[in-house]
């Protein structure tokens, strides 16, 4: 079977699902769960096919490559798709326990998911634009679903930032098209459009990926979004922009050094802020800023050809998605129990919930890069790549950044381990909420152990 078929399914199934959910709202949750299962099967199918048969590409409508809208899967894209499917499934399960059936969440989420998956399988720069904008729009609205003033403001800001990024990206695509006459990403890589195109497009993508110093919109949006939305945002939505940035960096490698510089800034600034803020979800959101910095540094290393860096970046993206998803789902459970997320006040609600503590612990281990988690494997690869390329500063940042992460993650665990009972009454938390968080956390730990199959996957280039 052509690996592109499951890829298309992965992108279109949520689209169909969102329409069905809109038509029959009372079945939302069941429909969503079924869709999620389907997407997971499709993603696994893509991974399997790519591993066995290699990368594949086609153009919709059978047009020649430089003219038509290309769909492509390679090893890296398959891994991102897998991350999307797994975290999406957990988020859907969580949402089923969190939101009622007749709730705008379902339509919006499924649309967002369709858009994200479309980004991961596209080979056309403009198709990417459309998908990215759909994702941005639905994500921003999802942020506001809670209805509080702060969430509205954060969502509006996210939306406007999205528009700015979109316009920049579109400008970049247009310049590239004018110079080379094609919109296909592969062709652009071969033809080297003028630097301006790359700068514009990457500028827009950096904004959407919250790369320092363009990160300001992320912490409020991710911290104030309701429950599973934060997980979806931090784990998946920023990854879509990152994925496109990876493709575009291969088109315009000159921007790699800028990514390194900004990435280091992100790691430092994000970690410092995470040590300061007083709310659980804000800590985790700033952690995303820092981790996107790592990914930026790793991307630059990969594009510059450092051996093993591509594997490191792909693995880091995958494990970050899982671990961050687990952390935010856990945080949402804390908010459900406590009614707020002021930290360390809300930590008391973790005290009799070993499932949640374990989920946070395992997620923290991966984010800090400790064995046996997947995060450790990613860190090993990136460190190896940096040292192999004799980029000592980057090696120090990669190694030391793990310690910074450990420091602000410890802020989460430390008060949770205090055995004294808290002063506030705790609301009940349905088991599916706790267990979806733990499921992702266990998975990211397992990914620290079952690595070999991924190596071959990443090596399969388009």
């Amino acid at each position, binding site marked *: 079977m052509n690996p592109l078929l499951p890829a298309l399914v992965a992108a279109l199934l949520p689209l169909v699902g969102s329409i069905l959910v809109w038509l029959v709202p009372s079945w939302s949750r069941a429909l969503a769960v079924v869709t999620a299962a389907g997407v997971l099967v499709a993603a696994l199918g893509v991974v399997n096919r790519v591993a066995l048969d290699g990368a594949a590409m086609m153009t919709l409508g059978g047009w020649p490559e430089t003219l038509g809208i290309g769909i492509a899967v390679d090893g890296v894209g398959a891994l991102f798709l897998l991350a999307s499917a797994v975290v999406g499934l957990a988020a859907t399960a969580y949402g089923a326990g969190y939101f009622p059936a007749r709730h705008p969440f379902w339509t919006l989420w499924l649309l967002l998911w369709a858009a994200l998956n479309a980004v991961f399988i596209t080979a056309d720069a403009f198709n990417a634009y459309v998908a990215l904008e759909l994702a941005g729009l639905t994500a*921003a609205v999802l942020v*506001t679903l809670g209805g509080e003033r702060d969430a*509205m403001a954060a969502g509006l800001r996210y939306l406007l930032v999205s528009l*700015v990024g979109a*316009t920049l990206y579109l400008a970049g695509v*247009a310049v590239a*098209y004018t110079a080379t006459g094609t919109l296909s990403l592969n062709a652009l890589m071969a033809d080297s459009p003028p630097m301006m195109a790359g700068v514009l497009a990457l500028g827009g993508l950096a904004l959407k990926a919250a790369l320092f110093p363009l990160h300001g919109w992320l912490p409020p949006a991710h911290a104030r979004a309701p429950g599973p939305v934060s997980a979806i945002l931090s784990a998946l939505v920023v990854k879509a922009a990152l994925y496109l940035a990876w493709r575009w960096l291969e088109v315009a490698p000159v921007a790699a050094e800028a990514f390194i510089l900004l990435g280091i800034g992100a790691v430092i600034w994000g970690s410092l802020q995470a040590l300061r803020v007083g709310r659980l979800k804000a800590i985790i959101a700033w952690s995303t800023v820092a981790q996107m910095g790592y990914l930026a540094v790793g991307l630059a290393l990969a594009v510059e050809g450092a051996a093993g860096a591509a594997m490191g970046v792909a693995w880091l993206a995958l494990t970050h998605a899982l671990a961050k998803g687990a952390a935010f789902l856990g945080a949402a459970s804390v908010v459900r129990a406590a009614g707020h997320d002021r930290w360390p006040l809300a930590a008391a609600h973790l005290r009799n919930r070993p499932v949640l503590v374990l989920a946070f612990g395992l997620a923290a281990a991966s984010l800090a890069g400790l064995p046996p988690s997947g995060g450790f494997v990613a860190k090993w690869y990136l460190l190896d790549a940096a040292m192999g390329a004799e980029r000592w500063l980057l090696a120090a940042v990669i190694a030391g950044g793990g310690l910074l992460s450990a420091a602000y993650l410890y802020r989460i665990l430390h008060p949770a381990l205090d055995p004294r009972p808290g002063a506030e009454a705790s609301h009940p938390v349905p088991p599916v909420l706790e267990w979806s968080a733990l499921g992702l956390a266990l998975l990211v730990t397992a990914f620290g152990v079952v690595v070999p199959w991924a190596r071959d996957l990443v090596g399969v280039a388009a």
Partner: protein
Amino acid sequence: MTAAIFLFLGLFLAVLGGLTTFLRSDGLHRIISLNIAGSGVFLALMAAPGGEEGVDPVAQALVLTGIVVAVAISGVALVLLARLAELGGRS
């Protein structure tokens, strides 16, 4: 020649709109400036290729899509702005 004027005009609008977005803090102003900036970008994009045989249809398609996206986002942004005003906040 005409193309160059449109190009210049488009860039000017883009920069103007961009600056205003940053400098203004009022939500409505920002949305409007962003739209102006967007229009400037679209204008520049259409004018850039030089236009000997008229505008490149693919460029037209790009810009049309861009307009649609901008309109959709602006619409939602306006709704959010209104809701925010109801709740008594500043954006």
